[in-house]
């Protein structure tokens, strides 16, 4: 204990680390200043904000929750081709359906495909692995129009309940992650389960998948955050089903209609709070080593 402490205290202070420390402090400050400014501004009334614009060196002094209340009430959007507006609850519901279905598809499919490719000795498994590597290395540019047309032909375009099919692919870095985990689990587990009479499905669900459960959870969470925050894909593919991202994007393009910048920022905070809370709650898991699944040596 004593030796450990003395080793710590005798750790040399490298000039490199001093410089990096200073740069990282600047990084945090530069990142936080606009966020704190935004948080302050979200509590400022429209009139006080106009005054502040005329005298930007003095921060407004009066704050209230009105922007949040008005923002909550004004959080309505008219989807493309519709005459009726959708309120915040409908938008949140659509966001949940979109985020959960797409996250499940984008997590389960690479996981199951990686399981098949890593645990079964068929040549086609190696082909699948090769496809993932090749498609990740070869960039395809400008296939968005074609993808939209194909989605329209298949009835997936503007279909909230079927859109997850487009995300159910195994061409992601998560396939490689799951593959390395499943490959690292000794085949003896599968053989022992087989001798005990377990079928292939039972072996997959009860014997092997539990080793990757932590990673599956993290990948699902990362995907969920990604899809919740996303507005571009729904903007293009789900025009009749605005999600919080598309709604906020529309508000940001027409902020004057919605009480100006203070109310706009308040509206964005309203829909960002759940995801920020989720990320803070799981921040240790999210930032841990993703490949920490499988068997520990």
């Amino acid at each position, binding site marked *: 204990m004593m030796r450990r402490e003395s080793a710590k205290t005798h750790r040399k202070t*490298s000039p*490199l*680390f001093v410089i*990096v*420390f200073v740069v*990282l402090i600047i*990084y*945090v400050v*530069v*990142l936080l200043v606009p*966020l704190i*400014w*935004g948080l302050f501004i979200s509590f400022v009334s429209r009139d006080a904000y106009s005054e502040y*614009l005329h005298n*930007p*060196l003095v921060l407004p002094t009066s704050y209230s929750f009105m922007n949040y209340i008005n923002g909550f009430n004004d959080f309505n959007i008219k989807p493309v081709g519709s005459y009726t507006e959708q309120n915040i609850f409908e938008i949140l519901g659509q966001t949940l359906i979109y985020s959960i279905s797409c996250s499940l598809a984008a997590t389960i499919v690479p996981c199951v*495909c990686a*399981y*098949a490719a890593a645990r*079964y000795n*068929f040549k*086609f*498994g190696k082909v*699948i692995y090769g496809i993932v590597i090749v498609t*990740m290395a*070869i*960039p395809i*540019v*400008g*296939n*968005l*129009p*074609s*993808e*939209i*047309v*194909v989605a329209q032909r*298949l009835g997936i375009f503007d279909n909230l309940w079927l859109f997850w099919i487009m995300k*159910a*692919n195994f061409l992601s870095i998560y396939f490689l992650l799951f593959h390395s985990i499943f490959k690292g689990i000794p085949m003896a587990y599968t053989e022992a389960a087989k001798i005990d009479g377990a079928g*292939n499905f039972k072996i997959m669900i009860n014997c092997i998948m539990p080793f990757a459960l932590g990673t599956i959870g993290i990948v699902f969470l990362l995907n969920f955050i990604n899809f*919740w*925050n996303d*507005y*571009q894909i729904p903007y*293009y593919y789900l025009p009749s089903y605005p999600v919080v991202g598309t709604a*906020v*994007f529309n508000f*940001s393009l027409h902020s004057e209609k919605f009480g100006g*910048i203070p109310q*706009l920022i308040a509206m*964005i*905070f309203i*829909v*960002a709070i759940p*995801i920020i809370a989720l990320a803070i709650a799981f*921040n240790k898991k*999210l*930032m841990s080593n*993703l490949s920490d699944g499988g068997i520990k040596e």
Partner: protein
Amino acid sequence: MTKALLGGYNRSNKVKSGTKDAIFFYALLILPVLQFIIFYIYVNFNSILMSFQRYDSTQASFVFLTDNAFKNFQGVFELTSLGLDLGRLALNSLILWLCIVIFGTIPAIIFSYYIYRKRALCHFFKFFLFLPSIIPSILLTTIFKGFMIDCISNIMQVFGVTFKTSNGLLDPYSNTAFPILLAYYIWISFGSQVLFYTNAMAQVSPSLVEASQLDGCGESRILLHVVLPGILPTVKTFIIASIAGLFTNQMMLFNFYGVIDNAPRIATIGYFIYSMAAPGPSNYDNYPLMAAFGLCCSVLAIGAIFGINQLFKRFEK
């Protein structure tokens, strides 16, 4: 006799088990492979076909060009004559890519090394480096946009700086917007790189680092000669993956401005393609031209990837 019978039983059991394995294996893969065939192979094949087609509004479908099959490709080269500064878009995309590689990768490696060596406040910094990946990008861009226009630009005006429009420093037609947006993009993009590099550094044998410390190596030498060679495959993967971004990265311009016409000072090729495919009344007419444009970019990107790969191989030798 019994042995022979048992051997036969075992063999038939093995065959049965092999068939069951094969059935299960292909059952797991059939739907994902079907999805891959439709949404990767067919979509890209259709994109190639589309580059030889035009949109027929009377039939509401895409039909093959009969008079000049390469009309869309000609159109790509004629974009310049229509007033689009393709050279400027390419230059902006190239500057963006170079800045990501140089000012994004090098600091990310150094930050990761700091976290890997568990120096002061390393967990705190890791959290803040990853924070922009968690916060919705639209929230960050809206606040940053408001902050730059309503706060910084206004303060500058107090001190006598004048701006042509109310967008201040972020006026898309000014010279200030591009460098600011570029710096902002790099500033918030460290998260995933730091996460991957710290994971890669964790695989470097601690005994190697300890040995070099005992030999009297300073931290910068350990980073350069011990840790960096260990994470080079990860760095290579990031740089190669970023080449695709040369033609697809829109530097969050869509978040900041939505679709704006004729803003070559800030626009990148990725933004141009993206905004041309944006939902609108006449977007179908643009699709074949965009498909042809994308095909040209893909060919260039594949060439660039092979070039960079060869460069890395030489460097590794």
